């Protein structure tokens, strides 16, 4: 049963990567920041008490452990049930998708917590001076035109492929898929646009660090958009070529790719030692 073996490997990889490995890296990074840049020297970095930060970190860790445990239970359940990857049997294909959504909940909560921290930072910013660069921020200063063109080609490529498979007839399934992918892309554009032109979340952030983060965010959104289109193409191709036993693997790989290009990319591209933490000292002027 090679399909089952592939599924187990990929699903175990999904559990380990998203619920154990990246959360471990994220909490390690948080601890590194707390140890290297303590509240006593960098008070502006901690609008809330350190105890609150540690509490949030603990919740994040426990949630991930809990979700990893759920993953193991699901895996055991699948292992114990008479599991066959046959065409038309849809009982397990959606599992990596729903489990993947569950796995991203701690990350979303962490994101919500960060935005609350930034809000408190802005409230605590008592500086009466405001500064801004007198140069416009343009999309192509942050992302190569090739990446944008690739994302657009992937989007229209999916629509053309789906239509081609269905003899160029707009069925309700195609409409639903196209609308959902379009909505996803609108969301990505909104997030990238907010980072590019929107309010500065961290009032103390060094302009160079802001530039790096915007660059990361815009590129990350474009790459995720490309993979979303490719995922749609892959799921249609699976149905077309009757390779349903690969659907579960593709679903799992999709979430792993999202994690690699989301959390993984930020951990790789934004190094702690490259960030200017001096702006969070008490005597530092706000940017």
């Amino acid at each position, binding site marked *: 049963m090679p399909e089952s073996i592939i599924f187990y490997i990929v699903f175990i990889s999904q559990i380990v990567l998203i619920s154990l490995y990246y959360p471990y890296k994220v909490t390690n990074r948080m601890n590194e920041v707390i140890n290297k840049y303590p509240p006593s020297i960098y008070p502006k970095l901690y609008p809330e008490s350190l105890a609150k930060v540690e509490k949030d970190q603990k919740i994040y860790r426990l949630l991930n452990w809990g979700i990893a445990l759920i993953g193991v239970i699901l895996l055991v359940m699948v292992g114990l049930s008479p599991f066959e990857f046959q065409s038309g049997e849809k009982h397990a294909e959606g599992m990596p998708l729903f489990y993947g959504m569950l796995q991203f909940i701690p990350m979303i909560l962490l994101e919500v917590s960060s935005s609350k921290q930034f809000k408190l930072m802005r409230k605590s910013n008592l500086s009466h001076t*405001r*500064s*801004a*660069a*007198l140069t*416009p921020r343009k999309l192509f200063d942050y992302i190569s035109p090739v990446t944008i063109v690739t994302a657009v080609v992937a989007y229209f490529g999916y629509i053309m492929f789906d239509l081609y498979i269905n003899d160029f007839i707009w069925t309700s399934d195609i409409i639903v898929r196209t609308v959902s992918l379009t909505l996803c892309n609108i969301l990505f554009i909104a997030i990238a646009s907010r980072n590019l032109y929107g309010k500065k979340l961290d*009032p103390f952030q060094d302009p160079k660090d802001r530039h790096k983060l915007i660059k990361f965010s815009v590129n990350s959104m474009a790459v995720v958009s490309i993979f979303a289109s490719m995922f749609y193409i892959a799921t249609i191709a699976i149905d077309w070529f009757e390779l349903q036993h690969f659907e579960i693997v593709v679903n799992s790989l999709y979430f792993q790719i999202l994690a690699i290009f989301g959390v993984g990319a930020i951990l790789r591209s934004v190094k702690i030692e490259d960030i200017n933490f001096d702006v969070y000292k008490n005597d530092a002027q706000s940017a």
Partner: protein
Amino acid sequence: MEIIIDIDDPTPLFSQLIEQIKNAVIAGKLNPGDALPSIRQLANDLELNSKTIAKAYRLLERDAVIQAKGYRGTFVHPDAQKNCTIDLNEWVNEQLNKTIASFRDAGVTDSEIRIAFSNAMNNQKN
């Protein structure tokens, strides 16, 4: 090139913006044809109301220090360096002083001047 606004300064915020952009042009930090940030970007970065930035840009455009080129954005005017030295407020004050002095010489009272000035302004609005 960075712009710094002091929100506690008694000088109006839009005037601080105008002054700093003009100073940057005079100092050669901003050259003719250089692109300026959009109103939205500058308002968000400076945490100011976009109307304040729009007012500053409008007055700079009136003085031919900057020029808006539709969707392409806002740029430093080709004659910005020369136009930065022209102070329209000073010119208005000078012209008004001369006119008021000539009215007084002709025997017109201050209240008549005020009423006439007010009427003229209202007529211009209409």
